[in-house]
């Protein structure tokens, strides 16, 4: 007795899945913006010659790189609200977790990029009378950012995959929509297959774009850091 595949109940619930995909992109975008900004801040602190700045930054980076994101998410959703005395929506908990988590990875990308710039660039900037932060902003970062783009895009794709964890605290992302639709239609096989394919298409396209950009950069003679 072969199983009769039937995708029509899933397609009838397409609006739910579309809404889920939009929410997935929303949490990914939010975490990406905050993650990159925070990651740059962490990297600059980490590279600071002052220990009282570099050590705490290093500690945050190590903790968030070394613990599982799902544990972090549960901590920010179930534990922190009691500690601080505020309500956390699933979206807020996810945004905070994925921002800090991706920031700690972005920080290492920034750091590798900044450290890959030759000493001479620093010397030249100093010879022109620039202070450390001026040299960083005007000379070092613009060059470093170009080398970081491939690693940066790779992390962004990882981040998108990580956002699926938010379904476990009932935020209505694409994976959560899949749970709902499969329970509604009693068609888990079709639902999860369709949702896996949606994720595949979106992430695969993003990966291809990243690959193209990396090829372009490689051709323009730019080394990349990972």
């Amino acid at each position, binding site marked *: 007795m072969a199983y009769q595949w039937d995708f029509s109940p899933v397609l009838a619930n397409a609006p739910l899945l579309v809404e889920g995909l939009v929410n997935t992109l929303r949490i990914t975008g939010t975490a990406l913006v905050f993650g990159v900004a925070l990651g740059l801040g962490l990297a600059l602190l980490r590279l600071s010659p002052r220990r009282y700045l570099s050590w705490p930054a290093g500690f945050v980076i190590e903790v968030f790189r*070394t613990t599982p994101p*799902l544990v972090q998410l549960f901590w920010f959703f179930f534990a922190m609200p009691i500690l601080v005395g505020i309500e956390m929506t699933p979206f807020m908990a996810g945004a905070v977790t994925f921002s800090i988590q991706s920031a700690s990875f972005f920080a290492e990308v920034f750091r590798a990029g900044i450290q890959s710039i030759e000493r001479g660039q620093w010397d030249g900037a100093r010879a022109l009378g620039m202070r450390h932060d001026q040299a960083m902003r005007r000379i070092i970062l613009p060059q470093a950012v170009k080398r970081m783009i491939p690693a940066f895009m790779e992390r962004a794709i990882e981040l998108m995959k990580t956002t699926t964890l938010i379904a476990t605290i009932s935020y209505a992302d694409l994976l959560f929509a899949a749970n709902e639709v499969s329970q509604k239609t009693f068609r888990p096989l079709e639902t999860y297959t369709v949702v896996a394919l949606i994720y595949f298409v979106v992430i695969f396209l993003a990966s291809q774009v990243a690959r193209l950009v990396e090829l372009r950069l490689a051709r323009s003679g730019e080394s990349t850091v990972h």
Partner: protein
Amino acid sequence: MRWDFASVFDNTDALLVGAAGTLRIFAICLVLGLSLGLLVGLGRYSRNRWLHIPATIFVEFFRNTPVLVQILWFYFALPILLPFQISPLAAASLGISLNSAAFSAEIYRGGIQSIETGQWDGARALGMRWGQAMRRIILPQALKRMLPALTNRAIEIFKMSTLASAVAYVELLQQGKLIASLNYNPIEAYTAVAVIFFVFLWPLVQFSYFLERRLRRDE
């Protein structure tokens, strides 16, 4: 707010059971993922189209879908096609192992490709067949270069093992949830779980840094 870890220490047994569950699924996925990854990596390296194309599809599919989606697919969707049920351990192990196989396949392929052709020529000159050259000459050298990346994979597998809690497999995070809901102490329970993971993983992470430094120095 007063922190009170006594309620967590009272449940040390539950955490030990969870730790055993975490280590079990970690070991399964590490062995399955890295060995299957070697096969797929050789397929990706191969010039034979019948090996190369399926290996490429496998790698692209599993690298470009979230591992939690894979786990839920194996748990909720696959049993419909099979005449038997799939346990939470089996579903989570399948998802994590196949995902890790796809990622490690690219590490193996990159490592093998990084070995100079002269090594192949030398092996052939000594009368070795392809399989012998690969096993005796190429892989041992490539393995050294791949070790940092493979260690990072192992760390990722350990972190991914928490996703098994989404299908109610008994591991550390699942036990943390249980303790938190029984004792109303989410702060202490989840902090304890986070600390335990950190303690397990920190030495592994430091080891990977050490391997990376050593490799950079040697090359």
